[in-house]
């Protein structure tokens, strides 16, 4: 574990150093290339703004209007049937929708139930093993101007469901139920 976190901490500085040294060795005009590549970054950030404003406004209305709670009430029986504990259901539903809300919920669950409880461990694994599907789709499709997402949302959400069930099963196997 210690080695893994050392790799994680040292990874970025080493990577940057390596790219610069290798670039210089290959006689790439590093500074000019850096600036050229960086210019693109500004363009992309500006391009995504309308996509993200649309998505985040929709999501915050969805939450403020109580529609999210209604959806949770609707989905909860199905989630319980799949063996997902009641305490985790709101987190499981919010995880693909809002990254910050999910992070808030995870810390709340860990604070209330304790980090080494079943719920604490399960919320930790759940938070770590899934991503904010809606955000990823909005940013990536927005950046290239794609408006028809095809099956991407369905695939992403179903994969999230697989991830949630996998988290429950793996945590139960590793640490036992409750």
């Amino acid at each position, binding site marked *: 574990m210690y080695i*893994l976190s050392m790799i994680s901490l040292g990874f*970025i500085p080493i990577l940057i150093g390596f*790219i*610069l040294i290798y670039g210089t060795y290959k006689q790439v005009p590093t500074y000019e290339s850096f600036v050229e590549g960086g*210019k693109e970054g500004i363009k992309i950030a500006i391009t995504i703004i309308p996509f993200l404003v649309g998505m985040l406004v929709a999501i915050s209305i969805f939450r403020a209007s109580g529609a999210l709670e209604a959806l949770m009430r609707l989905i909860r029986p199905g989630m319980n049937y799949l063996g997902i504990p009641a305490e985790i259901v709101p987190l499981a539903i919010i995880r693909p929708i809002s990254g910050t809300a999910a992070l808030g919920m995870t810390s709340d669950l860990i604070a209330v139930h304790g980090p080494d409880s079943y719920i604490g461990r399960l919320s930790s*694994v759940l*938070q770590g093993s899934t991503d904010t599907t809606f955000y*990823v789709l909005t940013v990536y499709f927005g950046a290239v101007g794609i408006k028809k997402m095809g099956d991407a949302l369905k695939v992403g959400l179903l994969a999230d469901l697989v991830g949630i069930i996998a*988290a429950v099963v793996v945590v139960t196997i590793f640490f036992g139920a409750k």
Partner: protein
Amino acid sequence: MINGKMEEINKAIFTGAQDAVTLCIGLISILVFWLGMMRIAQESGLLDMLSRLFRPVVKRLFPEVPQNHPALGYILSNIIANMFGLGNAATPLGIKAMEQLQELNQEKKKASRSMITFLAINTASITLIPTTVIAIRMTYHSASPTEIVVPTLIATIISAIGAIIIDRYFYYRRSRKG
């Protein structure tokens, strides 16, 4: 919904919009820096080396991308950045990958098969070290903050495999419909 919720909804609209813009502004620094670095990596041939190394695996996942296409290099660096929990490096790389895939895309407004596969893998987010979760667990005095690393990795691998299978299933369903 009408009684009292309206005020909250009004607030939600504007905080949602504000959050989105703040998020995009925050992305500028990350996008500029990493796309600058990646330009150097690309011009020095590092990205090509990376894609040559993992070609056998990626070729199977993205059958529609030509063997020597730069998209593969970006897709791989995005997956690797995600693995190390470098979310801020992963996003610019993912966007570059999407741009490259968009060049191969026949219908520019519609998500291509490769794009859907790429996003499916992305939303499943394979993580080696879930740094944020470990930090939260430390804050709440876990006896072992990192004990969730291996379960998280297993859960995330299962959800990534799930994502790939679900993506394939939807692709074959689409192609049967014509």
